[in-house]
């Protein structure tokens, strides 16, 4: 993480993940904490917990914020205590001020049904992060299992699984995903599964290659001599030493998954409106390109930074794990010292 690119990548990724986690606390039409009719409520915090996977089982929304007719901005007693997020607009909060340019009230303007772009942008980060990390979690599980089995056992197992990997590589991922999404219900879970089930091949190949390289090391033979079985050898000896290239591949994969999700949402097969995603925001903006060009930039910049961030992070991991490049850097720094 020494290089400036690595820092930029880490920064982008950290910012994106924070945005995804804290979206409901940054832009919301409900207060973070408030006192209403003599009781304390935490509508914003509850929503933030709901963003986490499995969070909706953890806490439930409390009345009156559960009611569809309750409008916190109007119905909340103005004298009561309420802690509001910096942006007081929710991602799905419609108004009559449509297609407005950026102003003090709406920092990035409003879209075609009067929703605040800044709120949608922040909440869309959650969809992208969920798709990116979720898909690569699925892909990582499949890739490590298949690649690891092929690399460890070799011979006909390897031949069979390698052909399977090659077959999956042959399919163009985006069009396969598109084809599957036509049949499946368009939801984030399905997008995650479809990308995860098609993008595991490079991870499988890296895992296979690393396992083949490592399995003849003395420490693996020592484990076999102690009677350790294949599962134990793979989990405790091979995988921990093969992690660096797998992490690099995963990081690049997250960037790719975010792009695929954006593409699917653009075409209407991904995240469905009114839930915001950068893809469907871009689609809406594109339809009003002539009248409201300002709508185009926010999702574009967000996609650009997210993809750039994960790619730079992947590069940084590779550089940190690669002893030759580390040596080069040491030489470079030494050179700098003598020069200074």
């Amino acid at each position, binding site marked *: 993480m020494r290089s400036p690119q690595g820092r930029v990548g880490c920064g982008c990724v950290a910012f994106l993940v924070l945005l995804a986690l804290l979206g409901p606390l940054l832009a919301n039409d409900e207060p973070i904490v408030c006192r209403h009719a003599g009781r304390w409520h935490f509508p914003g915090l509850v929503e933030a917990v709901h963003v986490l996977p499995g969070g909706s089982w953890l806490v439930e929304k409390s009345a009156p914020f559960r009611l569809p007719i309750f409008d916190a901005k109007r119905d909340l007693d103005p004298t009561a205590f309420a802690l509001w997020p910096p942006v007081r607009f929710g991602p799905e909060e419609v108004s009559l001020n449509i297609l407005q340019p950026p102003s003090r009230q709406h920092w990035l303007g409003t879209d075609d049904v009067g929703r605040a772009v800044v709120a949608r942008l922040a909440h869309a980060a959650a969809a992208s992060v969920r798709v990116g990390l979720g898909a690569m979690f699925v892909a990582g599980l499949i890739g490590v299992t298949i690649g690891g089995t092929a690399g460890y056992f070799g011979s006909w197992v390897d031949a069979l699984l390698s052909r399977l990997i090659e077959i999956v590589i042959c399919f163009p991922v985006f069009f396969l995903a598109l084809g599957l999404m036509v049949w499946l219900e368009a939801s984030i879970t399905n997008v995650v599964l479809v990308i995860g089930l098609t993008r595991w091949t490079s991870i499988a190949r890296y895992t296979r290659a690393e396992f083949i390289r490592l399995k003849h*090391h*003395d*420490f693996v*033979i*020592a*484990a*076999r*001599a*102690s*009677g*350790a*079985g294949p599962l*134990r050898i793979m989990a*405790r*000896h091979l995988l*921990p*030493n093969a992690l660096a290239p797998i992490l690099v591949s995963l990081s690049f994969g997250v960037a790719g998954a975010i792009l695929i999700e954006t593409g699917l949402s653009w075409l209407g097969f991904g995240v469905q409106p009114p839930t915001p995603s950068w893809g469907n925001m871009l689609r809406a903006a594109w339809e009003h390109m002539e009248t409201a060009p300002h709508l185009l930039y926010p999702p574009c910049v967000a996609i650009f930074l997210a993809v750039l961030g994960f790619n730079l992070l992947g590069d940084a991991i590779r550089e940190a794990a690669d002893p030759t490049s580390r040596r080069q850097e040491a030489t470079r720094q030494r050179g700098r010292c003598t020069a200074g």
Partner: protein
Amino acid sequence: MRHAGNCNKVTDSRPLLSVGDLRVHFPIRRGVLGHAAGWAKAVDGISFDIPVGKTLGLVGESGCGKTTTGRAILRLIPATGGQVLLDGRDVFALKRGELRALRRNMQIVFQDPYGSLNPRMTVEAIVGEPLAVHRIARGRQRRDMVADVLQRVGLQLEHMNRYPHEFSGGQRQRVSIARAIVLNPRFVVCDECVSALDVSVQAQILNLLTDLQRDLGLTYLFIAHNLAVVQHISDRIAVMYLGRIVEIGERRDIFDNPRHPYTSALLASIPSLKPGVSRAKRRRVRLTGEVLSPAAVPTGCTFHTRCPFATELCRKDQPVLEPQADLHPNHHVACHRAGEEMMEKMENGK
């Protein structure tokens, strides 16, 4: 004699390990289809016994098949043929579960102290792993057993939570030894386990191995490429060349009365501080050239291409490992000219 080829029976005690006609051939694959174009005979029919609590030193140049022998005995690489009996049980005939159970009794220490320890595991995890695999102890008890064995090999308790890269080569080799003896095995293969160390550290590790053998009743197959190393630890010594044993005998016989020119050459290569004394009995035999590839073994005696005393007979006919009339009955040599003293050979040869 228990089976054919087992011609090195030691009279006084029963063998713990008995290797008979062990062969390990590797296919040399060529072309797209990868069919075997030939066979590299890494180990080509070797036999020896090791009695309980004794050490056999196995010596030879790089590539002569010593490491392959050690690994094939432990069934870490598949053998092409032959038989290995550990405590009377046929190692090659065991089923998976039985083999796993038998692994408690046979362990290995590797040459490379850097590659033989998993860099991502602490010393405690490395040494404790065999205990976990065989479900012998867990938690507190496992920790205590690991601490115990670490002290036995001369490491401190505070080393338990460290990683291999924090240790010197000698210390790592101690960790390796700790891992090998933690299961309390009966037989340990020491695969060139001091070759990568400094001479002073070599002596420490050799002393440690000797102490452990005395305290735990271990039996060693001690592999080395240098006779000097096995001199102090071995009871018997076998000299290997191109997959075959060319000379085997009691340590004193090998050192004082070598009959195979290859053994003489290895002895001559030991640097000595007392030239007048130790060299007097030996005649210098200098070898030229490299060890041949086991893929292209010459006809006749495999050593004839480098032997200064080779005759026409040596080029045609392969000598067998057999006792010599004028030697100790346990001292066997595979050389057509073994009966002649080295001086005579020097005069008659070439």
